[in-house]
């Protein structure tokens, strides 16, 4: 709740490196609360860093080959790591034993390219294998299953071996977990319903080539894709139909088929660099792209709220960038270099020396002081005292916690255009100002069906319902 005291006008997107963490990381991701950062290491282990102390606090040792992806459950209790060793491991950070033991192992028969938790239940995971197949694994007792996501292809009977599906190259849940978006090697985006695993839409993206990555703005209406043509495309997603509750995957479902026209294309017109990663700011007003520039560490930032105008290019030095992730609530970025360092970017707020003197205020320009008529009048102390006492009659509220004093206008997840460094308190029930217009209109009842399905058999990852034990690191203390 410090944002109410920090000057709201200085904050925007991150502009400068605050710290480097020498983590030996291949990539690093913030947790959804923004307290930790998980770093995948070259040797197959993962490290969790505490951003407040800027020190590693947990070492997750389980994979024997390179980690390919990391995902956090929604309240940061569970961590998922996928690896080229064909395994997906799930770790429970609430466990008290150190080093932490794996909580669950999901094995596959090919290297795992990426895996992620369902946004509403960490017992449902989406897995993409190096063979180009994507699976939804449900480990809940009532729903235990492993379903492959298959593109619906109208079989015209010419092909004897059945339809040939193009390999899937990227797969993600949308922020609500209602649909799964997959990108294919032939430049298509396929949309599947999570509950029924039925394909509900197919979009051909012309000129994109192989899809390399996707990221959603938090509200879920906007999607940015990265593809082999070195262009980031932003799409406004249509409203997708929901298969009925009793729908069966074998029955034909009329899916949406059509091209999706990007609202914006972002590329580097001069160097034509490819992109390693891209990420929306938490309020969706900025888009950051990490350039695959072999000679430098460049992050491009576009101002989405300003029609996608290019805002700035951040230079992180000589070590090339390999990964990029925006902090879930603040105006901060974590970019990983190919040497394994994690750069934490922030938006520095200038020191306000006026704050050191009580009753002073800093002004940008000289102001002619207008003396009040009664400024030097000597008032009767008794009158003054009585007035003060009267003013003190007003009731104060000392224990209702609101999400920051500016909460009514902003919500808990703003990165910066209008007020920055927001800290989520409580459950952030104030909806963020939505750039995409009304998202949920008319979709309530269908969303509920999906949500209710996902929330069956909750995973125990409750906000504030677990805590990570502080482990006293007596060995590290020797160095200081």
């Amino acid at each position: 709740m410090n944002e109410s005291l920090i000057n709201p006008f200085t904050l925007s997107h991150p502009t400068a490196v605050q710290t480097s963490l020498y983590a030996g990381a291949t990539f690093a991701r913030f947790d959804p609360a923004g307290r930790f950062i998980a770093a995948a290491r070259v040797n197959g282990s993962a490290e969790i860093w505490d951003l407040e102390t800027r020190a590693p606090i947990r070492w997750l040792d389980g994979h024997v080959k390179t980690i390919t992806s990391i995902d956090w459950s929604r309240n940061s209790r569970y961590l998922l790591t996928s690896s080229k060793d064909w395994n997906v491991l799930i770790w429970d950070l609430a466990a008290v034993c150190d080093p932490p033991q794996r909580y669950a192992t999901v094995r596959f028969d090919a290297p795992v390219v990426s895996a992620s938790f369902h946004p509403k239940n960490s017992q449902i995971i989406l897995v993409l294998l190096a063979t180009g197949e994507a699976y939804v694994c449900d480990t809940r007792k009532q729903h235990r299953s492993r379903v492959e996501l298959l593109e619906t292809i109208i079989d015209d009977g010419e092909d004897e071996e059945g339809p040939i599906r193009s390999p899937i190259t990227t797969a993600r849940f949308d922020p609500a977990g209602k649909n799964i978006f997959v990108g294919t090697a032939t430049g298509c985006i396929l949309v599947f319903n999570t509950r029924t695993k039925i394909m509900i839409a197919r979009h051909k993206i012309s000129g994109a080539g192989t899809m390399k990555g996707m990221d959603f703005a938090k509200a879920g209406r906007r999607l940015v894709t990265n593809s082999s043509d070195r262009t980031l495309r932003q799409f406004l997603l249509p409203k997708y139909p929901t298969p009925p509750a009793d729908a069966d995957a074998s029955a034909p479902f009329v899916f949406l088929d059509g091209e999706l026209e990007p609202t914006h294309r972002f590329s580097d017109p001069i160097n034509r660099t490819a992109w390693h990663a891209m990420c929306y700011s938490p309020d969706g007003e900025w888009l950051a792209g990490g350039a695959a520039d072999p000679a430098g560490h460049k992050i491009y930032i576009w101002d989405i709220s300003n029609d996608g105008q290019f805002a700035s290019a951040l230079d992180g030095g000589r070590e090339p960038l390999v990964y990029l992730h925006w902090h879930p609530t603040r105006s901060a970025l974590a970019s990983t270099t190919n040497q394994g360092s994690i750069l934490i970017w922030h938006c520095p707020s200038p020191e306000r020396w006026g704050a050191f003197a009580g009753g002073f205020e800093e002004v940008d320009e000289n102001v002619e002081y207008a003396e009040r008529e009664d400024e030097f009048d000597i008032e009767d102390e008794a009158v003054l005292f009585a007035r003060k006492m009267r003013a003190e009659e007003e009731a104060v509220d000392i224990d209702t916690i609101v999400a920051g004093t500016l909460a009514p206008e902003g919500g808990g997840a703003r990165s910066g255009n209008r007020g920055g460094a927001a800290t989520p308190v409580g459950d952030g029930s104030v909806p963020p100002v939505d750039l995409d217009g009304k998202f949920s209109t008319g979709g309530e009842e269908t969303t509920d069906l999906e949500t209710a399905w996902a929330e069956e058999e909750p995973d125990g990852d409750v906000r504030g319902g677990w805590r990570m034990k502080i482990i006293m690191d007596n060995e590290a203390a020797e160095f200081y």
Partner: protein
Amino acid sequence: MEPPRPAGPHKPAQDNEKPLASASTSTPNYELRAILSGHKASIASITFSPDGAMLASAGSDKVIKLWDGITGEILDTLEGHTEGISDIAWASDGEYIASASDDKTIKIWSMEERSEVKTLIGHTNFVFCVNYNPNSNLLVSGGFDETVRIWDIARGKPLKVLPAHSDPVTAVSFNHDGTLVVSCAMDGLIRIWDAESGQCLKTLVDDDNPICSHVKFSPNSRFVLASTQDSTIRLWNYQTSKCVKTYTGHSNRTYCIPACFVTSKGKYIVSGSEDNKIYIWDLQTRQVLQVLDGHRDAVLAIATHPFRNIIASASMEKDLTIRLWFDE
């Protein structure tokens, strides 16, 4: 092993529905239920564990004593400091206690092992006050070297040293979400800091500039409660830099006496006093509602139970007892 904890860190659920006005009308009726003796020198600090099961006390006799929070039975004595202890604080999970001592160190004690696990060295003079952040991965401390220090507890390493004041720092603590730090000092200033950057965000100062002996955030962190050595306790709205409530009637000219919020029953302010009494004010009307008599010396330390209506108080040389007062 641990008894159930209340949902919020500061208030039980049943209090939420109670409107502000009706809370003001209830009167406290605290009665002495237990007298705990064992300390051999002045008691400087007492505090309930976050689950309310234990009470920790410490003082000039260099030891920390652990008591049962309800019955007052002695549970353990922790020895290790070489000089007197000025302040103790519980980690929010109740697993550790931090103690600030005149031997210039802060020690972290494990409640599981009932022993010292870490010594934080860095202060160049007496350490006077210490507190955990809500995640309990950071510690903030202040002392006679006029600095405020933020520590990484797991590694026992100082993260920040803030040249915060121009006199000994008498109190320092985090707000409920750990983003702000408030400190006060004998220079009479109350300062609010950004915990992450260490920047000073605000300075609160009263016209007369009395020595400020204790400060803490209200449970929702929208106000700070400050005790000054002109026998006054003030509730400040730090956004507007205005004093919104003044509580007087007790006597405080010499020692650093903390004040506490009570939110478990009505909404009260509680403070010890140098006239050997404990004063309870109504938060809103600022009237003294009850005066607890019994100690035989100045009441320097006071603590309120996290969810039950219990006040613990402790006194100086001539008395050396801890008293538990119940209103239930």
